[in-house]
Structures are given as structure tokens and as C-alpha cells.
């Protein structure tokens, strides 16, 4: 009976525009924030952060980015891995070139650089549509990875061809390099994920978000009511790439510590992030988190059950994982094309009327 909007009258458009118009949702949101920021940092251990929390938060940022492009603006991209690589390598070059500047600023600038590259690869979207564009974004994926593998300036001419994150601190606490405490890794990822989500939410519920959705739903009509398609599509590519770049920078600098373009940012990354938003829900910020959570937790659980508990060979478990992920994608597209977020929404609709559904 708590979950009600009756009696909760909005007296201004500002109140009506807020993200969680229902009081119960709002309180739950604050509770989750309090737990993640104030309690979890004291509880987490190395395994939990490395296996689940850090990749979950970092993938969430990438999923938010791709969701802006694909879920909100309707442009399918298979170049996410390549753009993550741009973020990672920009961050690496900045970290090594300006060791005195804060790593936080480096990560944000890396996002900015990725935004520019993303906008450049978004230019063809003005002429090419649908899966033609999806295939065209493969050009970004393969070209960028090749570039970072072949041009040794990007990895500072290191013999291994890898990039390694040197130690950098925030308020004297190391967040990159070999001496990172699990809670510090968790906190920096959490802060970036939280800020990204808030910004993405603000952008998508305002004028820019409506511009994107108009292009997604019917580009010709959008242009005729006054949407400049060039600005709409390029801004979607740029802002999407900004988030993807930040996630790539975090993935390399904070999570992996060392990376190589082909291994860490190959086409599989592009697919995984795409799957996250399909399963989580196209056009939903919450869905980006839900999808990332599912696809990060699933392999961990499979490994726990299959390899550790049942003692099956890890290769076999990996194949089973492929089958399950493929099945999940198909299942969601068949049963609920709007993903977990829609299931959640339906559950809330039901709850709102419960126990008198008619």
C-alpha cells in the first residue's frame, strides 16, 4: 500500500519533471545511494570488487553511453570496443605526458577525446542508416584497434606493445597502479558511474533527449518539425562516445592496469555492451545498469557452479556461457524487446494498483 501516486499531488512542473515522481521510488533511490556510498566501501573485499563491482560499474558507464546512441537516438553501433580503446589510450598518453595532473581530469579529458573521434565516425550516419550504419561502425572498431596496435607512439614504444598504468593518487590514495586498495577502486568507479548516470538522465529527459528520440522514431518527421539531423546525430555520437571513452579509461587505468588494444578492446567488447543494453532495456538508464549487472554476474555464477562446484573444464563452461547469452538475447527480443527495464516497469505498474487491479 506504500507504492501510490494517488494523493501525492504535484503543484509545479518542476516537481512533475523529477526523475522519481513517486515518493516510494525516491526513498528507495536514496537508500541505495546511501548503501553504495556509505556502507559498501567498508564491506568490500578484493574478490568482490575485482570480479563483480568494478567491471559492473565500468560496463554500466559504457552501456549508458551506447544506450544514448542506440536506445535513445536509434543508431546501432558495433564500434564500442574501439571507442573504449580510444579512451584507454588517450588516458595512458595523458597520464604519462602530464604526471602531475590529477587522474580524474585525465579520465575526463580522455572522454572528451573519444567524443571527438566518435563524432568523426558518426559523420557517415547522416548518409547511411540502419544496419548499413551498424556495419560501417565496424570500420571504427577494426581501424582503431589496428591503429593502437601498429603505431608505437600510442604505447610509448614499449617492447611488449602493451600499455601499463603508472600509479596515480586521488587525495594521496592510490587509484591506479599495483597498490590500489579494493575500496578505492570501487569508490572511483562508483563516483564516475553515479555522475555519468545523473548526467545521462538529465540529458535524456530534456530537450536534447527529445531531439534524439525524435530522430530515432521518425527521422524525416523530426527534421520537418525543426530538428537539425546533423546536430542531433553528431551530438548523440559525441556524448555517447564521451561515456564510452570514460569507461575505457577506467577499464584500463583502474581495473586492468595493463592493456593491449586487440585483447582488451576487441569486437567482443562491442557485442557485450550491445547485449547489455538489449537485455537491460533500450532507452533506459536503469536498464544500462541492469544489463551490465546481469552480464557481469552471469559468468561469475557459471564459473562458480560449473568450474568450481561441479569441476567441469573452464572451456566447457565458457561454451555454455555463449549458449546462455545467445539464448538470453533472443529470449528478450522475442518476449520483451524493451528488456529488464520494461519488466521492472510492468512490475511497478502492477504494484501501483495492488491489491485492486481493476
Amino acid at each position, binding site marked *: 500500500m506504500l507504492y501510490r501516486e494517488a494523493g501525492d499531488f504535484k503543484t*509545479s*512542473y*518542476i516537481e512533475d*519533471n523529477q526523475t522519481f515522481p513517486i515518493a516510494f521510488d525516491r526513498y528507495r533511490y536514496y537508500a541505495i545511494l546511501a548503501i553504495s556510498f556509505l556502507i559498501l566501501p567498508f564491506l568490500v573485499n578484493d574478490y568482490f570488487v575485482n570480479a563483480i563491482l568494478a567491471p559492473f560499474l565500468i560496463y554500466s558507464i559504457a552501456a549508458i553511453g551506447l544506450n544514448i546512441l542506440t536506445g535513445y537516438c536509434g543508431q546501432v553501433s558495433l564500434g564500442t570496443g574501439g571507442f573504449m580503446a580510444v579512451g584507454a589510450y588517450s588516458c595512458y598518453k595523458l597520464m604519462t605526458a602530464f604526471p602531475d595532473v590529477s587522474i580524474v581530469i585525465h579520465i575526463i579529458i580522455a572522454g572528451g577525446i573519444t567524443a571527438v573521434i566518435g563524432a568523426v565516425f558518426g559523420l557517415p550516419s547522416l548518409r547511411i542508416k540502419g544496419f548499413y550504419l551498424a556495419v560501417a561502425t565496424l570500420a571504427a572498431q577494426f581501424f582503431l584497434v589496428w591503429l593502437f596496435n601498429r603505431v608505437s607512439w600510442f604505447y610509448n614504444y614499449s617492447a611488449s606493445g602493451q600499455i601499463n598504468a603508472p600509479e596515480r593518487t586521488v587525495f594521496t590514495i592510490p587509484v591506479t597502479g599495483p597498490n590500489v586498495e579494493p575500496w578505492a577502486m570501487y569508490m572511483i568507479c562508483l563516483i564516475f558511474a553515479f555522475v555519468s548516470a545523473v*548526467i545521462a538522465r*538529465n*540529458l535524456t529527459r*530534456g*530537450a*536534447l533527449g*527529445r*531531439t534524439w*528520440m*525524435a530522430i*530515432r*522514431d*521518425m527521422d*524525416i*518527421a*523530426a*527534421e*520537418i*518539425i*525543426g*530538428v*537539425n*539531423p546533423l546536430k542531433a546525430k553528431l*551530438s548523440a555520437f559525441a*556524448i555517447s562516445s564521451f561515456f564510452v571513452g570514460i569507461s575505457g579509461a577506467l577499464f584500463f587505468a583502474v581495473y586492468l592496469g595493463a592493456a593491449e588494444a586487440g585483447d582488451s578492446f576487441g569486437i567482443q567488447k562491442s557485442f557485450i555492451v550491445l547485449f547489455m543494453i538489449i537485455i537491460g532495456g533500450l*532507452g533506459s538508464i536503469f536498464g544500462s545498469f541492469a544489463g551490465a549487472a546481469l552480464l557481469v554476474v552471469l559468468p561469475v555464477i557459471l564459473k562458480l557452479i560449473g568450474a568450481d562446484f561441479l569441476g567441469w573444464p573452464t572451456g566447457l563452461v565458457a561454451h555454455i556461457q555463449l549458449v546462455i547469452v545467445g539464448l538470453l538475447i533472443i529470449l528478450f527480443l522475442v518476449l520483451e524487446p524493451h528488456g529488464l527495464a520494461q519488466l521492472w516497469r510492468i512490475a511497478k505498474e502492477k504494484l501501483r494498483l495492488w491489491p485492486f487491479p481493476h
Partner: protein
Amino acid sequence: MNKTDVNKGSDDYSVRSVVMEMKNITLRFGGVVAIKEISFDILEGEIRAIIGPNGAGKSSMLNVISGFYSPQEGEIWFRGEKRPWLKPYQVARQGIARTFQNIALFEGMSVLDNVMTGRLTHMNSNIFSQALWKGQSEREEVENRDHAERVIDFLEIQHIRKTPVSRLPYGLKKRVELARALVSEPSLLLLDEPMAGMNVEEKEDMSRFILDVNDEFGTTIALIEHDMGVVMDLSDRVVVMDYGRKIGDGAPDEVRNNQDVIDAYLGVSHD
């Protein structure tokens, strides 16, 4: 919404100022001539109808006005100036809004969001303000919501404002589309078959709304319609097209008695 019916009320059309004038427009697709040397004008505050049989080039004409097609020959004069070749979104920014023959709403969005897209030409806050939802962007959001709500009231669609458009029946969709066009406060409103596929009751509602829009906001309207009865009742002046040519132009009664028009609609014996 500001009332701009300064010139309205005078039955003498020579007194009214010209909003838009088409001069010798010719549009071809490859070898097919869709519009051939058509000229007409649209006066401030009037309801101007374009009628004609199927394939006469009416929709193409509307697409030329909204900048979707660029004609090979001819000039468009808007508010006393020759209009250069503009892209559709630039035309929209000049204050020309339209609806579509086959509803072109944004199906993935709510009614309110659809109507709010009509205000996009009035929203200019920068991306940082939008990202933080502070300052100009928040102010604009509220101001434009206010406009949107007034149009929603006016067209009596308050009860469905948060409903996804995809769930609405046809008649309501047409009304939402009108709302989206109207909310941009256009100086010229183009309606492409606003009553196509409606039953009698819905047609009456729509006619009432069109007349109300014209009356209350003083909006100049150009519309395409098949239903002759509706056209004759609604419009101040009528252009008749057939096979891409103009075959009649004038007040509804004049046009009704024009021999060319009768031939085009009823057919003529070829002997």
C-alpha cells in the same frame, strides 16, 4: 499565446498581407512532372485549401513549402522576402509547422513528450546546463511545458498526456499531431489531409479545432483535403490542382462552379 488577428475580420482580401507566395513552381522527379508552373498566395489569417484528385500533386506542393522537396524552377516568397533554398528544419525555424497524411508521430514517446518536441525550435540552452538540469535548461523546460499544457488543454487531450502515443487510437493521434504542430506557435500551419480516415464525428471535432485555431490564435492555415464538403465549409479560398497544374483558384463558391474543376472531379467525356 499571442493573438495576431490584426488583419483578420476584413473580408476584403486585398487588405490582408501576404504570408507566402508561390511563383511558377515546377517540380520534377526524373522525367515525371509532379508540379507544373503553379503560382498562388496565402494571406495572413486565412484558411487556404488545396484540393484535387489523387496524384494531382497536392502533397508534393506541401512538401515543397516545408522544404522537403526542392523545386527545379520557381520562387517562394515568405513574408515579403524571397526564400533561399532551405532545409526542412530551417523552414520549421521560420515558423512553418505541419502535420502529415500518414501520421508521423514519435511512437516511442508519450503524448506530452511528442508535444514538447514541437517546442524544440524555442529551446536553446547549452549542453552543460542540460547535463546539470540547472539554470537556463530548467527554466526553459518549465516555460515550454506551460505552452505545451495550454495546447493540450485547448485540444482536449489532458487525460492522455502521459500515455505512450503508440497506444492511442487513430483519431486521437491526429489530434496529438495537430498539437505538436500548433505548440510551436507557427505563423503558417500546413495540414496534410487532417481528416483522412476519420468517421463523421471525428471529422466534426477536427473541423471545429481547425476553425478554433484559426479564430483564437489567428494562425494562417493551408490544408489539403479530399472531402469536398469539409473544404467548402472550412476554407476562405481554394486552389484546385489536377495533373500537377492549377485549374482553379478562388472562394469556395467560385471554384464550385468552375467548369474545369467540375470536369476534373466528375470526369469529362472525351469525344
